[in-house]
């Protein structure tokens, strides 16, 4: 155990339940711990709100309905069931449109590669109802993007932001995706030619993924598919880019690692390093391991357990997951999340010493994705982000920030 100078508050039972639900181990729903949490007197409103924020309500329903539905207030179970049904129907709608568009792109000799969405729900969860999805994400190569855009326009799709031809051309040269809305149906598709804004990544783009794209079948249709290593890398980059603010994304990474125990980790890290995204991969592996109990191979486990930058970041991620309104954990709450780190995972006693408050503050004011997105400056001016981040915090939380940090 860690040497504590005081006892940090324990993780609230609702948060623990959500972590169990997001775990790739399907037996957790039937575990004794799961039942004891249900019997502990949960704040169901909070549970539903946090589960909704994390996009795992269908999984929550799935586990509850399959195990102890009688321990759930009927009104809550009904609400979760409605969400489950909505997710099912939306998944089918998006799957149908995705398959149609992929066939269309193929007819125009455009190489299109679906990412996340129905393909991920199907391959990792085996059920479209278990992973909510808002829109479709499809990668195309830089050479194909203009033709792919025209195919969508010819199908009646419209850009989701009004832009004239010059603005579209500028986006194609300086951004990494274009969003389109379907006619007559609630479907949005993002056409990506990269995963990060050119200003937010330092290294190469994602062109390397096209060299080893493989084929699989989605509902009987042949579709281009990422190898597990590349999929994991992209999921980690995507989750990290969004500060892992949805448990669903950590669950995706956990399921992928659990389903592929023989992943080529050195290869993943080498590709990620070329994009300056190795920290994203390490963070994804660390979160899956610490929060969801996913077993990491020895090679990568040794690396993440010795990386002392990961636990403090995890504390902030948990704050965003389990305090969706404030999006920022206080110091004592942050400490409570560190209790989730495997005790064998390096020496963590420093986290519980008085000076750890300064370390906590240092991570709170470290610029994140949203800082860099709001204040877009050339990389040589990146220090300005450290000036901007405190202002961002004050603007969001106002005077309550002082109380919130305690």
């Amino acid at each position, binding site marked *: 155990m860690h040497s504590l100078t005081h006892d940090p508050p324990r993780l609230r039972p609702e948060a623990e339940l959500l972590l169990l639900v997001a775990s790739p181990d399907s037996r957790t729903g039937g575990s004794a711990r799961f039942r004891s949490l249900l019997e502990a007197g949960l704040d169901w409103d909070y549970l539903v709100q946090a589960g909704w924020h994390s996009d795992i309500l269908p999984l929550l329903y799935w586990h509850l309905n399959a195990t102890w539905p009688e321990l759930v207030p009927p009104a809550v179970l009904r609400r979760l069931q409605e969400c489950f*049904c909505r997710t*099912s129907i939306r998944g089918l709608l998006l799957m149908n449109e995705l398959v149609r568009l992929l066939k269309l792109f193929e007819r125009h000799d455009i190489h299109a590669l679906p990412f996340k969405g129905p393909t991920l729900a199907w391959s990792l969860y085996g059920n479209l109802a278990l992973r909510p999805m808002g829109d479709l994400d499809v990668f195309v190569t830089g050479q194909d993007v203009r033709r792919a855009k025209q195919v969508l326009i010819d199908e009646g799709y419209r850009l989701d932001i009004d832009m004239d031809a010059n603005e579209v051309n500028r986006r194609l040269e300086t951004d990494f995706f274009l969003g389109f809305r379907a006619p007559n149906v609630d479907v949005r598709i993002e056409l990506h030619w990269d995963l990060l804004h050119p200003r937010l990544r330092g290294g190469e783009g994602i062109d390397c993924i096209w060299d080893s794209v493989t084929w699989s079948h989605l509902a009987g249709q042949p579709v281009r598919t990422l190898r597990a290593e590349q999929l994991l890398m992209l999921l980690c980059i995507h989750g990290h880019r969004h500060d892992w603010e949805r448990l669903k994304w950590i669950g995706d990474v956990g399921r992928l690692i659990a389903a592929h125990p023989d992943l080529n980790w050195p290869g993943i890290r080498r590709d990620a390093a070329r994009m300056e995204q190795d920290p994203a991969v390490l963070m994804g592996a660390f979160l899956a391991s610490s929060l969801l109990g996913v077993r990491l191979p020895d090679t990568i486990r040794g690396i993440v357990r010795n990386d002392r930058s990961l636990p403090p970041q995890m504390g902030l991620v948990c704050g965003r997951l389990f305090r969706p309104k404030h999006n920022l954990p206080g110091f004592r709450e942050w400490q409570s999340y560190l209790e989730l780190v495997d005790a064998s995972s390096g020496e963590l006693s420093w986290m519980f010493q008085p000076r750890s408050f300064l370390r906590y503050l240092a991570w709170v004011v470290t610029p994140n994705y949203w800082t860099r997105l709001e204040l877009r400056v050339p990389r040589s001016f990146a220090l300005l982000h450290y000036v901007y981040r405190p202002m961002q915090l004050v603007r969001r939380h106002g005077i309550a920030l002082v109380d919130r940090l305690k």
Partner: protein
Amino acid sequence: MSISSSSIVASVKHQVSCDLAGEVVILNVQDGVYYGLNAVGARIWSLLEEPRMVSQIHETLLDEYEIDPHVCESQLLTLLADLAAHGLVEIKQ
């Protein structure tokens, strides 16, 4: 192709289905048409994931539901013929 008790049946690959609180919605991705099945139909659909003889499905249903064997067989054959007509089930004699 007609269906009999000795036919071997299985769901086709070009479909995807979702559980919907005990019922099931099936999407035929070849034509984009959706189909719904009630709880008993959903159970039959789950049995069609692997190729099975119709008589095996019939026996499973008799084990799980209180129903007259003749009525069960008749309704099962009707449903399977309907699913096959909509391209959702393939029949191997």
